[in-house]
């Protein structure tokens, strides 16, 4: 029992500094979301439950608008799946790392929002810290601060006076920092993958606009990586690339 507790404490201690900036901004962002729902006449129970169960910021904001329009459950389902397409790619990226997570695994998958994925995907976890519990606390702390913010926002209403404009940039800052970290700690070949991840979405954003660029970006990247496979297939040297061409 005691030993197990020590493992969790250690993982929690490793997770807190990695998620602190996210938690702070999640709290305020979710609060603005709760405020928005409050001004539309919803009780705080709505933002509280929606933030806890949907747990993907973009879809929560979209759902506010859906709730004040005509009832159309099928369109809502389709929209949620389209907005969430990127999660398919997160899942493929985490297949190996979530192996052997046991009972924690369903929660880790369920709670994998953009920011949680970004941290869990890139964190260099010290050898003496349990990976599973680290992933677990990253997910839990992020979700808890998001739900707390949304709930308080729903209760407080419009009484907040602190000017938070620009605070949402913390998300961009997080992703940029992780990008720089990955860039510096990886070999040259992976820079090609990283650049593809910047250039393809940037071109698609210019061509298709902010509302419609994600699906084309993901599709083009998929094609690009399949074409680059002969060059990038041996990205990690710990796996022997035997019979590397063939069926792909």
């Amino acid at each position, binding site marked *: 029992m005691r030993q197990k507790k020590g493992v969790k404490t250690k993982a929690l201690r490793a997770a807190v500094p990695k998620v602190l*900036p996210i938690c702070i901004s999640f709290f305020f962002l979710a609060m603005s979301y709760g405020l928005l729902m409050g001004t539309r006449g919803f009780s705080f129970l709505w933002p509280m439950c929606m933030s806890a169960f949907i747990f993907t910021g973009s879809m*929560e904001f979209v759902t506010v608008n859906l709730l004040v329009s005509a009832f159309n459950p099928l369109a809502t389902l389709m929209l949620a799946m389209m*907005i969430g397409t990127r999660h398919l790619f997160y899942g493929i990226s985490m297949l190996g790392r979530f192996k052997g997570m046991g009972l924690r695994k369903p929660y880790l998958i369920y709670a994998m929002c953009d920011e949680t994925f970004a941290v869990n995907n890139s964190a260099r976890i010290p050898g003496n810290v349990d990976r599973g519990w680290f992933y677990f606390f990253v997910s839990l702390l992020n979700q808890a601060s998001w739900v707390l913010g949304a709930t308080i926002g729903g209760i407080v209403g419009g009484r907040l006076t602190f000017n938070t404009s620009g605070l949402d940039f913390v998300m961009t*800052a997080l992703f940029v920092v992780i990008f720089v970290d990955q860039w510096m700690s990886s070999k040259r070949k992976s820079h090609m*993958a990283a650049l593809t991840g910047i250039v393809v979405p940037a071109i698609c954003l210019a061509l298709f606009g902010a509302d419609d660029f994600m699906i084309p970006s993901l599709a083009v990247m998929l094609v690009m*990586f399949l074409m680059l*496979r002969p060059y990038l297939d041996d990205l990690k040297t710990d796996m022997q690339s035997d019979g590397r061409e063939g069926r792909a």
Partner: protein
Amino acid sequence: MMIMTTWQGIVTVLMAVLGTVITRFLPFLLFPESKQPPRVIEYLGKVLPYAMTGLLVVYSLKGVQPLSGSHGIPEAIAIAVIVLLHLWKRNMLLSIAGGTIVYMLLVQLVFAA
């Protein structure tokens, strides 16, 4: 104000939950631990982590309009600050907090509409 009934509202929220959950669980259902995933999926699992961070950077900047308003200048300055801070100290908290504070000062004081 809501024009649908409370139950219709709850169903709408549940549909949003279901759609999101499907996209999150699908890869793990298609490629369970007990089975070796196809080589091409393993390959994608190695290259996508690098690419997805870049995608998230672009995604978080999608609202920036280079041709109007502040022309994305505050974003560009703040990102430069973040990269330099991070190359210099490699302290995640410092880089994120520094860049965000610079950005907030820029949009609230310098580029205020």
